[in-house]
């Protein structure tokens, strides 16, 4: 017969609701708790280190960005921007189709949060608006001269310089004068969002009229119209 007679060494008796536990039990428990804490901390540390290293990826949650470009619905929603493709997604685990369904393919302005992995970019679409059809009258200027390299940098005197600048690849701008006299610069791009500066070079420095899709990216207006849509007024 084997008895469970208490060991003489541990006659101390622990009662949980007493103010203090016996000293020898307290020592034993302290050692055990310390050992458990060390084991837990070490295990937690090893686990934290052992998890697979993850590649760079970023979601700018809560940070809204505005982008304009050409909306494509098929096969999946994308925004084409100067030859670059930005994939479009809806919020959460939903596609962007519901938000974009009402918009025709073409120039749009989209507000959303950027998602990036490597050189791939996506926008989680919060809002999207199509460019509005507008007919503008103005003068095509080259941005470098107009911004300050020359002043004045428009009109017949500057025309040849503007032709050379646009022919050389500088960014074109359409200088539009509103009825109240204020000037507004509009960036011309083709109907599918590509640069058309060289094609517009022969029209530089002259009054033109053009009809296209006008969209605003938060800082600039962009006019989506092919070079053939520009008509000389005089």
């Amino acid at each position, binding site marked *: *017969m*084997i*008895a*469970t*007679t*208490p060991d*003489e060494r*541990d*006659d*101390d*008796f*622990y*009662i*949980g*609701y*007493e*103010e*203090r*536990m016996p000293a*020898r*039990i307290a020592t*034993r*428990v302290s050692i*055990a*708790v310390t050992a*458990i*804490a060390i084991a*837990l*901390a070490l*295990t*937690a*540390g*090893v*686990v*934290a*280190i*052992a*998890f*697979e*290293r*993850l*590649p*760079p*990826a970023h*979601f700018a949650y809560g940070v809204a960005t505005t982008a304009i470009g050409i909306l494509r619905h098929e096969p999946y929603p994308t925004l084409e921007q100067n030859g670059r493709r930005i994939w479009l997604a809806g*919020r*959460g*685990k*939903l596609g962007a189709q519901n938000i974009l369904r009402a918009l025709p393919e073409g120039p749009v302005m989209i507000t959303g949060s950027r998602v990036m992995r490597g050189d791939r970019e996506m926008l989680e679409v919060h809002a999207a608006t199509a460019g509005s059809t507008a007919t503008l009258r103005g003068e095509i200027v080259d941005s470098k001269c107009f911004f300050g390299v020359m002043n004045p940098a428009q009109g017949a005197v500057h025309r040849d310089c503007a032709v050379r600048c646009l022919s050389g690849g500088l960014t074109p701008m359409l200088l539009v004068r509103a009825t109240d006299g204020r000037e507004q610069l509009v960036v011309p791009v083709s109907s599918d969002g590509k640069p058309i500066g060289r094609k517009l070079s022969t029209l530089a420095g002259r009054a033109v009229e053009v009809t296209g899709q006008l969209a605003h990216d938060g800082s600039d207006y962009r006019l989506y119209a092919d070079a053939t849509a520009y008509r000389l007024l005089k």
Partner: protein
Amino acid sequence: MSVSYRAVGWNRQKKRYDAVVLAAVALMIATIAGGGALVNPNATIETLLIRAFAVTAFLLLHVILSIGPLCRLDRRLLPLLYNRRHLGVTMFVVALAHGVFAIVQFHAFGDRNPFVSLLTTSSSFVAPSGFPFQIFGLAALCILFLMAATSHDFWLHNLKPVVWKTLHMGVYVAYGLIVVHVAMGALQSDRNPVLAVLLCIGVAWIVSLHLAAAFRERRVDEASPVMRASLVDVGAVTEIPESRAIVRCVGSERVAIFRYGNCVSAISNVCRHQNGPLGEGKIVNGCVVCPWHGYEYRPDTGAAPPPFTEKVATFAVRIEDGRVLLDPHAHPPGTRLDPARVS
């Protein structure tokens, strides 16, 4: 012990216990999430938190499952058991945080109800790549919830100890489910062998600890008491230390035989509170005190002192020639029997 129900019967030991538990939880979450962010800066905060809650809860479960057998092997560790239910509830809360974060991260904001998605998205029990490990985690969480929700003595009293204890043995089912959840989930997408080795060490630790404690218990239960007519010779009276007991397995029941002063009394070894081993208790101020949670019984009546109402069965004993003879027939709980006198 308490005659009325309170949310928590706070005392100094419980406060210290809980403080240590909360500090350990904070340390583990900080280590896993903070350390993870340092070595894995591209991980999102949601991923770090989901991992931190998961690992913390799983490690706490190992601690919880270790406490029982550790106390069987070394009674000086019984303070670890005293407030184990708070540790269990804490573990459940951390596991729940893991579950909520995981459901939101992986199933919410989609085209289906998150819970429908959780239950239906993965459904192949054959292919590891489509194994529904999430369901195992959810089932474990449900068991842990039941245990946490019924951890209060109110439920122990109303469900009765046998039902309550059976329900709470479900922790082993939950542990098994979580092992499958981890093995078929996280370890399938993160193939670092260190993680698999750690899981195996954890399982081996729990199993070996329980086997060691079981073998120790078995040695007691397998001992055959010597029969004398209708009485059982449970040993010499000198074997019983003052204010302590020896435990003998009589039939299918363990009996605790206490010696106090020149008296010897026998009561059931099973505490009415949580089936604690009364024979490992001690007589303090004239009452047998359960080593688990301090429930008290008078050794001659098996009844708790007023105003408490718990009662355990009593057994008649007598002493002949320095030997303690026990009548193996249990008397109804609370029946007063004269103690045997040591001459």
